[in-house]
């Protein structure tokens, strides 16, 4: 009785074990655009593009450069990028290996210019900041400004009428 040991793939499905390190995937709902994965990636498969005119930040992942080490998954603060189980990544064009996540940058309420960090990064920071130490009103004034405006308004406490509140009073709603 001869036992056939050859796998029937590709005519039959093959699934990698659950511990397998397949191609990475960024969950667009969780990514905050911090770029920690970009700093940790050894072959620079993840890049970041900032466009201060249009106010967008892009995290670009190229799976064809990825060595599947898993450092991005290890350092991601929001658990957005994870190595999946997928190993069937062969393709005829290299464009199919690209994933782009485009996020909006924070717009300063005072001068209207775009800052370098995204809105989501500010939201995450708000969730981590200790509520016991800070006040809602003080935070609400300062957190929606760019660095230069923060420096300039550091001494005065007033809130100008011309400031445009793009984000409303979000701090209260997050901290409730």
């Amino acid at each position: 009785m001869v036992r056939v040991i050859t796998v029937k793939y590709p005519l039959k499905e093959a699934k990698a074990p659950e511990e397998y390190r397949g191609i990475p995937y960024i969950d667009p709902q969780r990514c905050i655009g911090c770029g920690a994965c970009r700093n940790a990636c050894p072959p620079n498969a993840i890049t970041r593009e900032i466009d201060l005119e249009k106010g967008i930040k892009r995290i670009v992942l190229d799976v064809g450069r990825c060595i599947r080490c898993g450092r991005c998954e290890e350092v991601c603060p929001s658990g957005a990028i994870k190595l999946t189980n997928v190993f069937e990544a062969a393709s005829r064009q290299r464009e199919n290996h690209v994933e782009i996540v485009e996020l909006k940058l924070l717009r300063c309420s005072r001068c209207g210019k775009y800052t370098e960090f995204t809105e989501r990064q500010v939201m995450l920071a708000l969730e981590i900041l200790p509520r016991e130490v800070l006040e809602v009103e003080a935070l609400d004034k300062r957190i929606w400004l760019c660095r230069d405006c923060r420096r300039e308004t550091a001494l005065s406490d007033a809130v100008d009428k011309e400031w445009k509140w793009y984000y409303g009073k979000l701090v209260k709603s997050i901290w409730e």
Partner: protein
Amino acid sequence: MVSLETEHENDYIKRIKEQFKDKIIGIRKLYDDQWLIITEKDYLRDVVRYLADINSSTEIHIATMVGSDERPIRGKMSVTFWMNVIESGSSSFVGIRAYLDEDDLEYESIAQDLPGADWYEREIHEMLGITPRNHPNLKRLILPDDWPEGAYPLRKDFNYSESPAKFPGYSFTYKDSSCAIVPLGPYHISLDEPAHFRLYVKGEEIIGCDYKGFYSHRGIEKLAESRLTYEQVNFIAERICGICGYTHSTAYCQAMERIAGIEVPERAEYIRTLLLEIERIHSHLLWLGIASHLVGLESGFMDAWRIRERIMWLAERLTGNRKTYGMNLIGGVRRDLLDYRKDLVMKTIEKVKEEYTQFVEKLKSNRSFIRRCEDIGVLPYDKARAYGVLGPTGRGSGRKIDTRKDHPYASYKDVDFNIPLYKDGDVLSRALVRIEEVLESIWIIEQLIDSMPGGDIIAEYTEIPQFSEGLGYTEAPRGENVHYVMTGEKNVVYRFRVRAPTYANLQAVPKMLSGYTIADAPLIIASIDPCYSCTERVTIIDVKSGKRRTLSEDEFNMLSIKASRRRS
């Protein structure tokens, strides 16, 4: 003016001090088993020769040789010979260093006395521009032939990503335009290069051999010194070799942990040891398959690789990938060994042991295998010691060396195992050493799983001192692996020097080949277990008639397989 370290100095340091008195500028103890002697460059050769001949009954060989451009730090370049002094219970690495001024980059070559220093000096000459005077054979080793003179990649003023050479090309050299050209071999290039091995023969007997390699020189050392951070170098170290990559990653981590004074948790060391032994089993099974194929036993090849598949599947469940495990970080490992993974290890190892013992029975009782491997490629003990041959090749010639016993690292001091030793120095001895090492590895894995401790798997560290140096070493399946690391500033390594064991073993191949026939050559070259792509092309030059023919790997290997059929 000698700065003394009088306590715990070993005997050899004392004797060097006595012999050379004021020619030694300084002696520093880096760590418990690593010493550094600084001397004038004119006496470098004398000190190294003195240490190498200090005692003919201990095993001493060149561990590695590092040339470093330290001009940003202290305005000079340095040359350091690290010698591995092996004594039971107190082995150590003794480094002998000389500093060279920028306008006087020469020193007396040591390859005149120690044949094992040949390639190190050729490399330092073309990568840094330091000239060893009176070197017997100062040709290009690593860089392509069209690389311009004066561009030294490892100097600090050379940008890591710019290359001064244009598209590398070769030209045909026609002696006589009326003769017909018959293309031989797969690459169809001029008859001069790029053969890996060039055998000089008289009829069927080999009288000389020349090696040209390093086709996979990717500039790893320079990349680690410029673009990568400390943690990222782990991953490039793993891709130095696709068969023994985890040993390189571990050696680098151990060097960094030594420098930073990090204490790795015990459980992490056990996991590292487990993965190192798994890698050893898979590498030796790979070699047994290739050796059987060369001897003509095609079924042996398939059998060995079938057993090896189980190990690859096990590694996939434990680490996430069949090869390039990516499990090391400075301070520990990245994935834990949960209970169900431990059970998987035990089940797989039992099955492998059963199938492997059957396979070895068949192999050992196969007369053609024994007769083909016996008494060819003999490397006697004194030559093996002079060239500093390592690993199973060295142990097959009677050298009692094994980094796991001499310089215990990871958790090898907690497990019990033997080192197989054979004295004949032929291909069969090396095969037997590897066969027995697999059984020892299986025994080590069983002990590790039984007594694995609990606790953390990675240690935190805050600061790594700048411009400190150290050595990290492991026993790869092919021999001893030594990494030299000097840390720099801003989270970037200053100097990273890798010395793989095949580097030392390949230098002894011409000695092993001379006197044997061409049909034996594939087996002899494969017996040192070089990286598989080393023997892609071979040129055979008949000295008497001047004829040369170039063979592809398959054709070259067929010579050996056909000879087996004729002889059995």
